[in-house]
């Protein structure tokens, strides 16, 4: 059998030149909102980030009374290129299946915004950006950021765009965390929230996987304590290993078995070596090597850290329901049966807290063997739910 995942047996050097990636961090192929010294971003760590910029994409048209805006929050390793060709990889947008004319997020009806998160590497200020104070890449001098910091920055972007209330905020995984943070921090600006495959806090197991990824990056000699840009290197081996470990957590045992089983890669017999004999090994190496072409290693450290620190209840005396007290936002929570990174039990705990706050909430668990990544894939039941939830929110808002 010919596999689409045929790759060299060791992790290759990136095909996209590091200069292209670094250029994108400062001069993105996106719309950019720049915030000067008069508009610093107050971070949870106590530092005021200034100046800073946010790179974002929009789809569809904002209506006259500015009531049809939807904010999509992206996940850890994704970016603002939701429904357009990616400027570095040339691949389609990561949610084209969901966003476009006639799609659940119908660009004929809604104005859709997606911003690269603060700390990211696709044009919003982050560790791969140039520090204006030194003229060099920020690297580890960049302050630690949190999910609430990302959301605060997005709120400043919306102020800039003149949008007071969002018809919907949505996202999966880290995007779901931002969605929930939006409702907790700015309940009056969020008419509805579609939180997918996420949680109100990062679990110990998830923190452990992130630590594994970070240690892999930092163990790569090319990391140079985060100053690899100055050295003209990129810890692509360490970052690829981090991606491989992460990618396993986005799938499921059943999905891996269905896709690969114990099948061999382009060979009949084992080579009695450490080559990628198995298709699953070849696939993971491909995932690792393609990821490092478009992602900055330090950014991976910062964003995983932001997820680890996330715990909405901790910010409300340990009682989750207090975060949503009296909230008018309409919620839809979606989980997937085979997602073991953000299992249904986490979504259920969120739903209980929302019920205790008498919030209007829908909660659907969707049966699939595709694991955490199901929110990015072709799952028609999820599309139906997203479409109907948005339509009912639009009707309630008088669209």
């Amino acid at each position: 059998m010919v596999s689409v995942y045929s790759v060299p047996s060791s992790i290759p050097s990136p095909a996209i030149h590091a200069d292209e990636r670094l250029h994108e961090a400062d001069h993105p192929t996106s719309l950019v909102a720049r915030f000067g010294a008069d508009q610093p971003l107050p971070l949870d760590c106590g530092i005021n980030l200034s100046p800073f910029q946010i790179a974002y994409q929009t789809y569809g048209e904002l209506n006259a009374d500015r009531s049809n805006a939807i904010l999509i929050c992206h996940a850890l390793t994704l970016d603002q290129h939701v429904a357009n060709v990616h400027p570095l990889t040339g691949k389609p947008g990561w949610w084209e299946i969901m966003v476009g004319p006639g799609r659940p997020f119908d660009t004929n009806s809604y104005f859709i915004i997606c911003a690269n998160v603060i700390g990211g590497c696709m044009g919003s200020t982050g560790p791969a950006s140039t520090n204006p104070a030194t003229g060099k890449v920020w690297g580890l001098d960049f302050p630690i950021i949190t999910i609430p910091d990302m959301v605060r920055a997005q709120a400043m972007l919306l102020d800039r765009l003149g949008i007071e209330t969002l018809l919907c905020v949505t996202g999966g995984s880290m995007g779901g965390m931002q969605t929930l943070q939006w409702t907790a921090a700015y309940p009056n600006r969020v008419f509805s929230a579609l939180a997918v495959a996420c949680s109100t806090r990062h679990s110990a197991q998830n923190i452990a996987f992130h630590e594994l990824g970070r240690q892999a990056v930092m163990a790569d000699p090319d990391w140079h304590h985060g100053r690899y840009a100055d050295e003209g290197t990129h810890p692509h081996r360490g970052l690829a290993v981090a991606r491989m470990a992460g990618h396993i957590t986005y799938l499921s045992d059943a999905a891996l078995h269905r896709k690969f089983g114990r099948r061999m890669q382009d060979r009949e017999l084992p080579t009695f070596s450490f080559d990628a004999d198995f298709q699953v090994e070849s696939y993971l190496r491909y995932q690792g090597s393609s990821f490092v072409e478009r992602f900055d290693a330090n950014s991976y450290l910062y964003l995983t850290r932001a997820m680890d620190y996330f715990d909405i209840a901790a910010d409300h005396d340990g009682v989750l329901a207090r975060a949503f007290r009296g909230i008018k936002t309409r919620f839809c929570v979606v989980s997937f049966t085979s997602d073991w990174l953000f299992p249904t039990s986490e979504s259920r705990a969120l739903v209980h807290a929302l019920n205790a706050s008498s919030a209007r909430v829908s909660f659907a668990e969707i049966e699939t063997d595709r694991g955490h990544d199901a929110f990015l894939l072709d799952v028609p039941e999820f599309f139906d739910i997203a479409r109907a939830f948005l339509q009912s929110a639009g009707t309630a808002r008088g669209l």
Partner: protein
Amino acid sequence: MPLGDAGAETGRHYRGDHLLVAGMVDPGSKVLDVGCGDGDLLQLLESRGIDGRGIELSREGVNHCVAKGLAVVQGDADTDLINYPDDAFDYVILSQTLQATRQPRVVLENLLRIGRRAIVSFPNFGFWRMRLQLLIGGHMPRTDNLPATWYDTPNIHFCTIKDFVQLCDEINVKMERAVALDLYGRPLRLSAPWWFWNMFGEQGVFLLSRAGKAR
């Protein structure tokens, strides 16, 4: 409008017992439908401007409801009602579900903790056809509305209208309104005595509230 007939409302047909239940709910109320199935009753309530929420055990049921734009969560009447605060709703509805709960009494108490009123409907096991099947046929009754065999039925706590009234008395629940529906979903005569309802009512529908100062 005859309550028993499947009526047309906003261009679609609703079940007779749903129309009866919806008729017991004051406009503008906040309602929780426990065991809301495919969401037909919730849709009827929302079409009347009532703020409706639902709990449903089956994943398919929940996903159908959410895909209709209804606010429904996956959950179990036996285990999940405790997560709702006191007085969260004006009405809590338990439609044709009581007999499938593990602890009907606890569920009933929870309904009236969460809601100021509860509306409960259930199949009457004292219905003459049930009695006849057991008496003459010598086997567990099966009807069009309850077609499951004894070994695969989800209904583990059948009761008669008389049993239910007795339970309400025991746990100090006030019956504000009671209606028995015949086989065709038509209400029996109001003036009929309890024994008549218990014999000829195919299902009972009760509007309940907390009695006096018991709480």
